[in-house]
């Protein structure tokens, strides 16, 4: 089960990274975060979904002083943003 679906998603992801590479400008932080998360897929030991989600997550613990908008963007922007 699921092989063809996973294969299709893999090729879509590869095409997305190619598309980003062809575009002008530098990677934004989300693409960089996606590349880091991809590293969680290799190797053994299971929990790849959990590890990929953790790598995209805000690791801090203090509440923010105020919200800058309502939406999430899918990857933690880091301390600098």
């Amino acid at each position, binding site marked *: 089960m699921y092989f063809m679906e996973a294969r299709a998603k893999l090729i879509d992801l590869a095409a997305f990274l190619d598309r980003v590479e062809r575009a002008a400008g530098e990677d934004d932080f989300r693409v960089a975060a996606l590349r880091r998360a991809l590293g969680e897929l290799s190797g053994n030991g299971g929990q790849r979904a959990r590890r990929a989600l953790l790598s995209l*997550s805000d690791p801090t*613990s203090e509440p*923010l*002083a*105020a*919200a*800058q908008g309502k939406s*999430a963007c899918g990857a933690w922007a880091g301390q600098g943003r």
Partner: protein
Amino acid sequence: MRYIEPHAHMVSRTTDDYAAMAAAGCQAVCEPAFWAGFDRSSAAGFYDYFRQLTEFEPKRAAKFGLTHYCWLCVNPKESEDLKLAIEVIDLIPRFLDRPNVIGIGEIGLNKNTRNELKALEAQIDLAARHKQLILVHTPHLEDKLKGTKLIVDALKSDSRIEPGRVIIDHVEEHTIELALNAGFWAGMTLYPESKCTAARAVDMIDLYGAERLWMNSACDWGVSVPLAVPRAALEMRARGHGRAAIDKLIYGNPREFMSQCPKFGVNHE
């Protein structure tokens, strides 16, 4: 197949959706109060919304043979304006005795701010004072892990809160243990892109078992699927889960949790 839809924003859906859910075996639909996609400008806007949830929507659902229940709160997306949030929280007790209100929800966090946390704590206190069940919304995407930790800490710091009367919704692989290990229930929301697919939900059932776990569609005004729960049941069947195991997940578990509110009952019981 019979199932309970424990989290659906039916005010955003059509009568076709009600008809399809009833045809698929839905026995009851439960609607947490949420963000309308825009900020309401006053507490009066929430007052009207609570009337819609407790007066109009139950009648609309009944036309399709469905019992409609709701949860009331000010949602985290509108909690950043703390003055407004407190005004809305003060309105809620006058609705708690209405026959289809089964708890406080979906409370929680969105961007994990101080004001959101204050509004959350005020609503945990409201639930404790009125002995209400709690349904928790956890934040989206990169904010979910931090928000879930803050929410669990806030709930655990109030000694009046019994974890078995709280469901932490929208869990994913990196947050499900935070909910279950602390004794709370956990909800998996089945969305086409964000949150959780049916395949991942069945993975988590395989890994963590079927206790204190439910699945919901959280269908609303955005991209979402009102029949996500029965479709996930088909996924369970394809993965080898038997009839009884499926019935427990999609009917027995939500019934067990929400029956802790004496007002909750399922049609034909």
